[in-house]
């Protein structure tokens, strides 16, 4: 019996340690998925019993069916591509300009004097408020949409790059100077890498701004793109299509975030939090 008792004690101890964890296992496994799934089920049930009319909100099953239908017919991919091209073009211009202006203002006093006041004035004008003016200037084609996205994404890139450059550790610059690095070598080896984390924050902002602006810009008389699909669906009260498009916007946002996270994980590999993983 003594042997049994001795064997039992550590066993009992283990069970005691495990028991509380098992009690909360719902929150550990699938806990975060539970409430969305319950909501979906309630939504589906509400639609089935007629509590939620289809013209108010289509049932999840109907949305899924529409999604598959639109994907197979090519309607969704082709319009998604149009929207994606708008974001890409706008980002290319906006991020490019933000980088150029941030470098000029960050690296030279003259550049700061020339650029920064203008950028601060620009900051006070919400990009979307320029929509009417851009329509007057560029008409209702692709140009105002791309221009709005570009305009909205300049500032986050500019500001974060500029402040990243200005907050460089002067002690590191001193060290680089003491080893005889030229001004350009100092910028390349010390200033720019130290501004990179801040720049990536700016890039992440720019991506989320670009999708926000895209949604509004596509309401301007578009003949293709996600916004066009939504506008059309509104006219025919096809709430299933509207919900599909909202989902695609959300996926675009998640994809943009994933992109920057991937860049960060590669570019900032030297950071201890990433190194230790």
């Amino acid at each position: 019996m003594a042997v049994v008792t001795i064997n039992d004690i550590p066993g009992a101890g283990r069970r005691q340690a495990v028991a509380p964890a098992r009690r909360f296992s719902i929150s550990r496994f699938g806990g975060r998925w539970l409430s969305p799934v319950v909501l979906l089920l309630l939504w589906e049930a509400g639609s089935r019993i007629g509590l939620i009319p289809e013209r108010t909100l289509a049932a999840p099953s109907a949305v899924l069916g529409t999604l598959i239908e639109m994907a197979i017919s090519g309607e969704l991919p082709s319009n998604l591509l149009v929207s994606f091209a708008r974001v890409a073009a706008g980002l290319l211009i906006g991020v490019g300009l933000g980088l150029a202006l941030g470098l000029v203002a960050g690296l030279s006093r003259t550049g700061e004097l020339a650029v920064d006041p203008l950028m601060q004035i620009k900051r006070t004008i919400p990009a979307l408020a320029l929509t009417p003016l851009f329509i007057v200037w560029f008409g209702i084609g692709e140009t105002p949409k791309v221009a709005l996205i570009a305009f909205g994404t300049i500032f986050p890139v500019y500001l974060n790059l500029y402040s990243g450059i200005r907050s460089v550790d002067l002690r590191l610059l001193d060290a680089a100077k003491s080893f005889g690095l030229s001004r350009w070598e100092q910028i390349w080896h010390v200033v720019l890498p130290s501004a990179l984390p801040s720049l990536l924050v700016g890039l992440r902002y720019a991506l989320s701004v670009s999708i926000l602006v895209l949604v509004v810009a596509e309401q301007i008389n578009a003949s293709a793109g996600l916004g066009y699909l939504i506008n059309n669906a509104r006219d025919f009260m096809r709430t299933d299509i509207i919900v599909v498009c909202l989902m695609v916007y959300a996926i675009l946002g998640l994809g943009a975030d994933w992109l920057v996270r991937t860049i960060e994980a590669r570019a900032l590999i030297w950071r201890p939090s990433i190194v230790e993983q």
Partner: protein
Amino acid sequence: MDARLGFSTIDSAVHQPHSEPVVRLRGFTRRFGPNTIIDGLDLDIAPGEFIALLGRSGSGKTTLLRTLAGLDEVRGQDVEVPDSRAVVFQDARLLPWKPVWRNVSLGLKGDGGRDRAEAALKEVGLGHRLDAWPLTLSGGEAQRVALARALVREPKLLLLDEPFAALDALTRYRMHDLVLSLWRRHKPAVLIVTHDVEEAIALADRVLVLDKGRIVAEERITAPRGERASFAGRLREKLLSYLGGDDHGDGVLPFPVAAE
């Protein structure tokens, strides 16, 4: 000079070295606004000489080091420093986004940067941390990388700015030995700025005491390193008396005088 004494006070303000000095300062003065940081300083450093510069906070030793390192511009002053010089700072100041070997080879001209970095890192006992990220190094390791980064340039003048002040005592003693062996092998002139009198006595050929921008004392230590225990106590008290200067009137010694 009394040979038994092991150290001697140098009377003349300017020591005359035998060969052409690598560093030569005459009447060097530095002011920031109304404050005179360095006041008419004369300094010669001979090739291969190991000098310790002692001084309290605000004595001007950092300013002097920055001048010798070429970090502060000197216009219209009689200052000669060699082009090949390197600095080891109190904080290692490694670029965190470059692996260790790229930090060491930073700014080296020509090919074989990695090989040269590897050789220098092996000399400081870190041949195995070539590809490590600087933020994963311990304080002592980071300082050894900083030493390797300085040595890989084969400097004529090596400037050490309180390089071991942030290290624990044991690591500090190991670093003293490492610095001495590297110095014997490469023979740069070394100027170490420190406020640790023991460190100055253990390492240097010549100890300078800087106060209010002037060199107020200069001691030459002729006894070999390792055989300095016999007079270290007396020399320390002497140096401390200069550092504690009578004319400050605050009555507080910057360093506790250890009982012998």
